[in-house]
Each structure stands twice: as C-alpha cells, then as structure tokens.
C-alpha cells in the first residue's frame, strides 16, 4: 500500500510535468501558427477581422452592414453602396465599410473584438439595424452557422486557440431540422400583442387566415404568388420585439461597448416596404412594424447612440425585389438612406459635414 501511494504520487508528478510541457509546446505553437498559416486562415475564415485589424490605423468611421448596403438594381446608373454614399458627406473622414451578407447584431458584436484597444479609436460606428433580423426565421436561419464561423477569429483569444475553435466547430451550429423546429415553435406558440382586438393570436393562425381564402386574380382564379407573398409578409414582420429577443441582447451589448469607450453609435434602421405590407396584409401588420420601430428608437436613443429611422423613407417602387421582403434598394433608395444617415451624423460631425447631393 505504501509503495502504491509512493508510486501514485510519482505518477501524478510525472503527469503534471508533462501537462505543463504540453502547455508550453502549445504556447510555442501559437507563435509558429501566427508566423505560418494564420494570415492564410484569416483570408479565408476571418476576412472582416483582418479588414478591421489592418485598416484601424487609417479609418475613422466604420459602417457595419449586410446586403442592404451593397445591393443595387441592374439598371442603376450608380452602383455605390450606402456606406460610400454617406462618406460623400464627410470627405475629411475615412469610412471603412465592413460588409457581409445576412449579418446581424450578433455578428457585429463579435466584430467589435477585432478592434485593437491600443489602436486608433473609431470616431463613430454605424450599424445596420434591420428589423427582419429580429424575426424567428432570421434568428434561426441556416446561414447562422457560416456567419458564426466567420467570427471565430474575432474572439478575444490567442490565434491558435481561435483556430482550435474553428477546427472543433465550437460555435452555434444547429442542424436544419432543429432550426425549422425552432421557427415553427415560435410561430405557433408566441402570442402576438395588440392593444386592440384582433382575430389572430399567433403567426401560425394569421398565416393560415391569410392563405385561406388567399387572393384572387381578376379572372377569379386563385393567385398563388400573391397569396404566398402575403403569407411571407406575415411570417416576416408579425412579431413584437421584447427584451428576450437575442438581437436586443446583442444591440444592448454593442451600445454598452460604445458608451464605455465614448464612441458614437448610429443604428441605421433600414427601410421596409410598409406600403406594400399594408395593401397586402393590412393595417395590423403595419401597426406591429411601427410599434417595433418605436420600441427600438425608445430603447437605444441615448446621448451616445442615435437610431436613424429610415423605416418608411423609401418609396415602394424603389425596392429591387418587388416579390419578396428584402431591404435591397435602387440608387434612389440608397441615396435617400445615406443622406438621412449623414444628416443625423451631423450631431457629432457638424463641422465636417458637406452637402453632397
């Protein structure tokens, strides 16, 4: 027994020594990794992190955006993004556009980690505030896994540790079935709140009520396309934003991060086709859209943060996708939003503002 305890102690000591040695090796490998494959991996899996890191010293204003920023109509005379159009109003400032399709506050929040705390402080952050990013379908979108993967290198850990997270896929990665279940559950179980009586209490009921009877064409036949679009509008915009929404938690964190560092934050609430929602579904849906807008404006309007309200700024004809719910605008729409944003930014950059159009 005595011999066993003695050899057991020796064994534990041996194991501890080897574990320490392994830890030292991993620490050393971190340097090897940075010197060899890190930049290659960043170019493939951490483009946004690399962009912010490389351009922080020369940039003033950052525009975090998604497809609404860069989408354009094929017949647009100018293909310029909203961020670049906004930059025209502040020629003395360098605007860095950090853009990735389908991103949302959960991703932007991770991008904030890419800023070097000892580097040049951003003069302002502009973030796309897309109302649809609060809905169940976007929250549980199948694009979420690749988006989360793209932010792994923004985590505040040594590069090799982040690479380990990437290799072990240590990020939110639900399968398609799980995501669909979550969306359906939300549509079936979440009660919609109206201050007036309304015949549908869930998205599911509203969707069914819209699909049946649906729409009819002039000749009396069933208009499948229009009915489908109306149902899609219901599923996309029929929700009440509450504090429990994960996007709210993300924007809260972003807002706190900026306030703590004294960096002005502009939440650029994108325009939605409210007029079409009204004609297609009805005033109740428009009520929810406006109620959600008001909720966001109330929550995030502080000394340090401005919610730029573009919700009803763009005319229906200026939406590129007439048959789907997107925030893709033609040049007229993009110019309007950029100008509205630039006007609001005067609060912090009054002397640098120059009327561009």
């Amino acid at each position: 027994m005595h011999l066993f305890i003695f050899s057991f102690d020796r064994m534990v000591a041996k194991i501890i020594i080897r574990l320490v040695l392994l830890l030292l090796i991993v620490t050393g490998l971190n340097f090897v990794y940075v010197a060899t494959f890190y930049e290659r991996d960043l170019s493939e899996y951490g483009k946004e992190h690399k962009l912010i890191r490389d351009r922080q010293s020369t940039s003033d204003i950052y525009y975090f955006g998604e497809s609404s920023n860069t989408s354009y109509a094929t017949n647009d005379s100018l293909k310029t993004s909203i961020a670049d159009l906004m930059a025209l109003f502040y020629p003395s400032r360098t605007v860095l556009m950090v853009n990735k399709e389908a991103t949302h506050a959960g991703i932007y929040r991770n991008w904030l980690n890419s800023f070097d705390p000892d580097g040049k402080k951003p003069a302002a952050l502009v973030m796309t505030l897309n109302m649809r990013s609060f809905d169940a379908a976007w929250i549980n979108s199948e694009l979420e896994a690749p988006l989360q993967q793209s932010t792994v290198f923004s985590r505040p850990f040594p590069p090799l540790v982040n690479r380990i997270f990437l290799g072990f896929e240590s990020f939110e990665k639900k399968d398609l079935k799980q995501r669909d279940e979550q969306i359906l559950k939300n549509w079936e179980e979440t009660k919609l709140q109206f201050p007036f009586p309304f015949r549908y209490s869930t998205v599911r009921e509203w969707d069914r009520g819209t699909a049946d009877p649906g729409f009819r064409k002039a000749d009396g036949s069933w208009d499948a396309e229009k009915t489908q679009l109306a149902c899609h509008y219901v599923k996309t915009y029929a929700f009440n934003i509450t504090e429990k929404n994960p996007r709210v938690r993300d924007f809260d964190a972003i807002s706190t991060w900026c306030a703590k560092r004294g960096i002005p934050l502009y939440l650029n609430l994108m325009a939605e086709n409210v007029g079409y929602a009204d004609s297609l579904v009805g005033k109740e849906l428009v009520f929810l859209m406006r109620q959600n807008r008001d909720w966001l404006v109330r929550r995030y309007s502080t000394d340090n943060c401005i919610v730029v309200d573009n919700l009803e700024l763009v005319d229906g004809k200026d939406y590129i996708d007439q048959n789907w719910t997107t925030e893709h605008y033609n040049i007229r729409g993009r110019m309007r939003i950029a100008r509205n944003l630039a006007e609001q930014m005067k609060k912090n950059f009054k002397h640098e503002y120059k009327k561009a159009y």
Partner: protein
Amino acid sequence: MLFNSLQFLVFLPLVVILYYVLPFRFRWVLIFLASCWFYMAFVPKYILILFFIILLDYSSALLMERLRGKARRLCLWLSLLSNILLLCVFKYYGFITFNIDQIYHFFGEEFHAPDLALVLPIGLSFHTFQSMSYTIEVYRGRQKAERHLGYFANYVLFFPQMVAGPIERYEHLGNELKKEQRPLYDNFSNGFRLILFGLFVKMCVADNLAIYVNQVYSDPRYYSPVQVLLAVFFFSFQIYADFYGYSTVAVGAARLLGIHIMDNFRTPYLSRSVTEFWSRWHISLSTWFRDYLYIPLGGNRVSVPRWCINILIVFLVSGLWHGASWTFVAWGAVHGICLLLERFFSKLFGREEGVERSAFMNGLLTIKTFLLVSFAWIFFRAESFVKVGEIFEALRGNAVDAFVPQSPFFALLLCALLILSDVLVYRSRADLALAGTKPVYRWAIYTLLLFGMLALSGTQKYAFIYFQF
C-alpha cells in the same frame, strides 16, 4: 458526442478522474451513466432502442442457459431475429419498400408503403452485431450468461466503442470491464498517444481530404480524369483515416480507463492481396463475419463451388451491413469477386505457402491491392449507380473539365504522411512505436501531431463516416 469535439475533450478527462476516484463497486454505474450521456448527445430518445437490445439479449442469454435442445435454439433465433428486425426497421425499411415498389412498378402496379420517417440510430449496426455475438456465444456454450445487468449494459454501451466499434466479444470486453483497474502511468501515456494520433489522423488527414473528395464527387462530370482519379485515391485515404482515426481514439480512450479493446486496423493499405486486406481492415467486423456467418455456412471445408458461394454471401451481406443501398451490395460483390479471382490465380501459378517473395514483387502486389480496393470504394462512396457511371465516364476522359478543385498538393502530402506512418507501425501500433523512440524524437512527434491537429485541421467538422452504419 463526437470524439473530435470540445465537449468530448472535457467529458473524457472528467470520466477518467471520476473512474479512479470512485470505489470499484460503483465504477460500472459511472461507465453506464457516462455512456448514456455520450450516446444521448446524438438523439436522446434512441437510447431506448439500446435499452431494448440490452434487456432482450440479457434475458435471452439467461433463458438459454436454462434451456436445452430445440427450446434453446428457438430462444437464440428469437433473440437474433429481434435484433435483425430492429435493424431492418430502422436501417432497411426504406430500402426494402423502395425495392418492392420497383418490382410492383415493373409489373405495372402501384405499391404505397407508409413513410415511417425513421432516422437511423447512430451505430445501430454495431450494437446489434456486438450484442448478437454474445447470445450466439452463450448458445454455443463458450460464454456464461452474465447475471449482472449493469455489466452487460456496459458491454453494449461502453462509450469509446459504442457507435462505431470495434465490435467486441463479451469474453474479452466483459472481462475487461469487470477488472479492478488501478491508475497506471503506462495506460495514461499510451492512451494519450493514441488519442493524439487518432485525432490528428481524423481531423487533419481525413477532414482535409474530404474537401477535395466531396468537391469532385458532388459532380464528377466537370472534372478532368486526373482530378477524378486523385479524388478516388484520396477517398481511399479519407475513409481509412476517418475510421482508423476514430478506432484509434476509441482504443486510447478505453486505455485511459485501463481497459484494453481490440485494434480494428493493421496497416490495411500495405496488404498484398484482398484476402490480406480483409485481415487488416475493420478486423472486428471481418472476424465477426468469419465466426458467425462464414464458418456456419461451412467455411472452406466444402466443395469449391459451395465455397465460392459462401465467400460471395459473406461479402454481399457485409456490403449490405454497411448501407441500405445496392451500391454497397455491389461494393461487397466486387471485393468477393476480387478475392475469388486472387485465389484462382494463386492456385494457377502454384506459389507455395511460406515462400518469400522479393521486395519488388511485394511492392507491386501492394499497389495492385490498393488499386483494386480504391476502385471498389467508388461503389461505396457514390450515392447511386448513376454517380458510379459518372465517375467511370469522367475517368475515361468524357468529362466537361470545367471546374478546378482546390490544389491537391496538401492532400497528397497528407496521404504520404499516412503511408509513412503505416510503414513505421507495420509491425506495431502508434502508441507502442512512439513509446519505443527517444524522448526528444517522441516529443518532436507530439509537437508535429499537435500542430497538425490544432492548426491544420479541416475547418468543416465531418462526422465519422462509419457513424452512419
């Protein structure tokens, strides 16, 4: 829970520490709970299927021990058929109904089987085969029926090997699980080496090869013959690295608990014949088929035509065991035919057993075997015969040659590394080979393996290929 997940890297040390901290009499409870937890990380409700298998075979064995004659045989058959039925329902239901539908269609009739929408429980083929081997052994009187339900449950559930083998026999694993293990440095060091090596092989080699292979196999019509040929060869290494990596981690994880489980691979691509290949590839399955199908069919103690039929039956069933599709059956058939042809030519050229061949000749035979096995893998990897046709068409140069897959050089380097490691461990095993080297070289190899696993792993985590069986 996947071996190549961070959860497992937390789970395993916790289980190992608790295992040695707990008094011996409670350890089976820990293994049982840990195994349930491990399995339920996939689809929790499917643990009930495992419980059913455990209770069925546990009680069948106890009953068989009391019975004699026809009643004993009936008991065995009931147990085996229940296991097979379970497998048929979950794994082959879609395949069977599809084929019935095709037959009806041929005669101009319609057949509509209800869609059960069942998802195949992970590793079901492994559990059922492992459990069936136990009941057969009890029936044959070579194994005493286990009276402790907990130990028997752990035999079926033991987490390191529960989802993809090795398919262990009760005589071995049952006894290992009952031994009172003490924490030994050798077990820890060898277990660590095996896990490190296994994860490297899976995460760095298999997952990186998968990128090229998946790209080309998704639409082979658009790749050049050289690219398709590379994808065919890369798949040979991918599936080997994938399954070998998994099995090595399984052996290593068990070893940390002081439990020895069998090796499932012994450098299969260095085999000089298809026969030798099957004594080195997925050894636990090959021996299972040998003991419970080939020998009961008469083995080689029958006439030559009957022996040929026996061989073909074993390989066709083996193909079907792998997957519910005719492509898997074809894969098995190709192997069976190759093996028969090899035996035929071997007899024809009359080489006597035991006579050494030259190294050059051995090299040629190894290449021949690798080529045969690689081309057989096409049936295994392709989802349908249409895809098989596309691969062969592309190999003949009838492809459009429009896409450019990623550069194959890194993949080639990984294949070369795998061959090199096989040559180095030809008469040994990764952990033993490493243990025999000087500490400086050993730690240099650890460093390389760690770097490969941590910094060069594939960025898309693929589930182990054999999990689907």
